[in-house]
C-alpha cells in the first residue's frame, strides 16, 4: 500500500537576540582588548568632533562681509556664498551662465533616464556617446551661439567637462583597445599593447605637459589647437588605456561557452562580440569602471599644473582675492565637500547599476 508523503510545515527561525544592547555587546565590547579600543576611540572622537562641529556649523558665519568673518570664530561660509559664481563657472561670462547650466541639466537628465531605464539600452549608449558634442557646443559656442574662448572656462564646470567628456570618449576607445588586444591579428594586437602600456607607464602630469608643450611642436605652425582641447585629448588618452585594461579583465571573465553558442548559431565574430560578449563583459566590470570614473574626476585637478583653473585651482585663486584674503580653509573644505558629494553619488549610482544588472542572474 502506498503512503502519502506529507511535507512538513515551514517553521520560523529561532527568535534571535536582536536589539541595541546586544549589538553593542557583540560588536564593541566582545573582548577586553576590543572594549579598550572602543573607549580609546570614543575619547579621540570626543576631542575632535565638538570643535569641528563648532567651526563648521555653530560658530560659522553664513552671511556678511569679510570684516564680520574676521571678527567671528567659525568658518566663513559668506565667502563661499560671495564667490559662488567663481567656484562654479570660473571667469565664464555671467550673462551666458545658462549655457553651462543647461549642459548640466542635460547631463543629469541623462543620468536619471539611465537609472530609470526609460530608453532602450542601444539608444542610451548612443545618447551618452554623443553627449560630449552638445556639451562642448553649448559651453564653447559656435554654430549660432556666441563663442566663449576656452581661457574663460573654469571652476566646477571645467572639472566636470574634462571628467565627463574624458570618460565618455575614453569608454569606446578603451573598449576598442581591449578588443584589439585580445585579437589574433599580431599587428593590431601589438599596436594596442604598445598604446596601453606606454600610456599606463607614464603619470598623468607627464601626459598633460606633453599635450601642452610637445604636441604643438609636431603640428604645423599655422594650426593652433587651444590648450583646453589638448589637455582634454591627454585626459582621454590616459583614461582610455586604463579602461582598456579594466574591460580586458571583463572580456576574460565571460564564459567561453557564450561565444561558442553564438558562433554555433551562425553569428559572425563582430555580432558575437557586440551582442553576446561585450554586454556581459561590461556588466562584470561596472565596479572597477565606476572606480575609474571617480579616479578621473579627481585626477582632473592636475590640470592646474598646465595653467587651467579647474574647481580646485579656482578655489585657490578665490582665496587670494584681495577682499577675501585668508579664507583658504573654507575654500578647500567647500571644494572637498563638493568632490565628495560627486564621488559618493557616482559610487551609489554604480551600486544601483550593479543591482539592476543582477535581475535574473545567478
Amino acid at each position, binding site marked *: 500500500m502506498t503512503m502519502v508523503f506529507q511535507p512538513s510545515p515551514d517553521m520560523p527561525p529561532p527568535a534571535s537576540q536582536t536589539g541595541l544592547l546586544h549589538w553593542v555587546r557583540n560588536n564593541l565590547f566582545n573582548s577586553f582588548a576590543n572594549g579598550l579600543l572602543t573607549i580609546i576611540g570614543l575619547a579621540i572622537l570626543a576631542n575632535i568632533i565638538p570643535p569641528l562641529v563648532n567651526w563648521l556649523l555653530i560658530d560659522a558665519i553664513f552671511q556678511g562681509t569679510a570684516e564680520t568673518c574676521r571678527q567671528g570664530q567659525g568658518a566663513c561660509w559668506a565667502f563661499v556664498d560671495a564667490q559662488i559664481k567663481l567656484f562654479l563657472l570660473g571667469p565664464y561670462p555671467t550673462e551666458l551662465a545658462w549655457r553651462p547650466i543647461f549642459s548640466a541639466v542635460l547631463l543629469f537628465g541623462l543620468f536619471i533616464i539611465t537609472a530609470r531605464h526609460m530608453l532602450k539600452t542601444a539608444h542610451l549608449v548612443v545618447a551618452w556617446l554623443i553627449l560630449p558634442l552638445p556639451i562642448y557646443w553649448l559651453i564653447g559656442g559656435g554654430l549660432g551661439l556666441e563663442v566663449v574662448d576656452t581661457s574663460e572656462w573654469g571652476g566646477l564646470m571645467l572639472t566636470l567637462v574634462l571628467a565627463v567628456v574624458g570618460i565618455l570618449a575614453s569608454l569606446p576607445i578603451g573598449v576598442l583597445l581591449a578588443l584589439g588586444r585580445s585579437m589574433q591579428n599580431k599587428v593590431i594586437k601589438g599596436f594596442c599593447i604598445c598604446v596601453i602600456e606606454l600610456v599606463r607607464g607614464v603619470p598623468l602630469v607627464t601626459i598633460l605637459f606633453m599635450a601642452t608643450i610637445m604636441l604643438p611642436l609636431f603640428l604645423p605652425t599655422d594650426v593652433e589647437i587651444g590648450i583646453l582641447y589638448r589637455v582634454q585629448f591627454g585626459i582621454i588618452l590616459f583614461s582610455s588605456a586604463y579602461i582598456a585594461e579594466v574591460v580586458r579583465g571583463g572580456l576574460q571573465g565571460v564564459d567561453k*561557452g557564450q561565444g561558442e553558442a553564438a558562433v554555433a548559431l551562425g553569428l559572425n565574430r563582430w555580432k558575437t562580440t557586440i551582442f553576446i560578449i561585450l554586454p*556581459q563583459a561590461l556588466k562584470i566590470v561596472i565596479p572597477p569602471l565606476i572606480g575609474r570614473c571617480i579616479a578621473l574626476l579627481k585626477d582632473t585637478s592636475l590640470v592646474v599644473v598646465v595653467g587651467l583653473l579647474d574647481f580646485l585651482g579656482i578655489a585657490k585663486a578665490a582665496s587670494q582675492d584681495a577682499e577675501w584674503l585668508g579664507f583658504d580653509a573654507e575654500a578647500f573644505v567647500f571644494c572637498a565637500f563638493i568632490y565628495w558629494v560627486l564621488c559618493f553619488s557616482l559610487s551609489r549610482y554604480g551600486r544601483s547599476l550593479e543591482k539592476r544588472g543582477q535581475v*535574473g542572474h545567478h
Partner: protein
Amino acid sequence: MSGQNAALAAKNEQDTVISLVDMNKWYGDFHVLKNINLEVQRGERIVICGPSGSGKSTMIRCINQLEEHQSGTIIVNNQELTNNTKALEKVRKDVGMCFQHFNLFPHMTILENLILAPIWVRKMPRKDAIDLAMTYLKRVNIAEQSQKYPGQLSGGQQQRVAIARSLCMSPKVMLFDEPTSALDPEMIKEVLDVMEELANDGMTMLCVTHEMGFAKSVADRVIFMDGGEIVEENEPNEFFNNPQMDRTQLFLSQILSH
C-alpha cells in the same frame, strides 16, 4: 542500368548530410582524433558514446568547427569546411548545437535568446522571428516563461530553451553535446522527451550521451569511441546485445552493470 546507378549515386550524394574522411586532430602534440571516417545520411539519428576523454565531444565540435581539424576532410551540406570564414558561417546557420551547460545568454530574456539569430543571421523581420520563437517555445512546453531570464529557469527548462533556440534557425542537422549530463535526475526525462520528439519528426541528429535508454529507443546507429578512434558502430540492437570488440564489451558491462 548504368543510368540507374548514377541516379542512385546522385541521390546518395544528395542525402549525405555529413561526411568525415580520414579526419585527424591534435591539441599540440596530443593526437585527440585519429582517422575518423563517418557518413551521416539525412534523417539519421546517431548516438555517440564512450569513456570521457575519448574524443566524442571534440568530434562533433569539429562538425561545426568550434574545433579545427588538422588533416582529412569534413563535408557538411555539400560544403567542405576549410578556414574560409564566410563558407563556415553559412554551414553553421544550418547546423544546430546544444551544449552540456546550455550556454543560454544570461543577459537576454528567453524570447530574446531565441530571436537573436533569426533576426541577425537570417535577416527575418522581428515580428516573424517572435512568432517563430513562440511556436518552438510551445513545442518544448515552455512558452509561458518567454519573458524570464535564463537564471530564473531550472536546468531542464534551460536545456529545452537551448533546443528551441537552435530550432529557430531551422537547422538541417542537430548536434547534442552531452545535453543531459549537467541535469538533476528528475529533469533528464523532460529533455530526452523533447529530443525524442525531434527525432520522430525526422531531424538528422548526432548525439553524444550516456543515456543508453535513449540510444536503444531512438538511435539508428550507435558509435562507440575510445582513445580518439571509432572502435565500433552498429545499429542499437546489435550494438547492445552483440558487441564485437572486447573494448565495447568492457564499456557496456561497466555502464550497464547497475
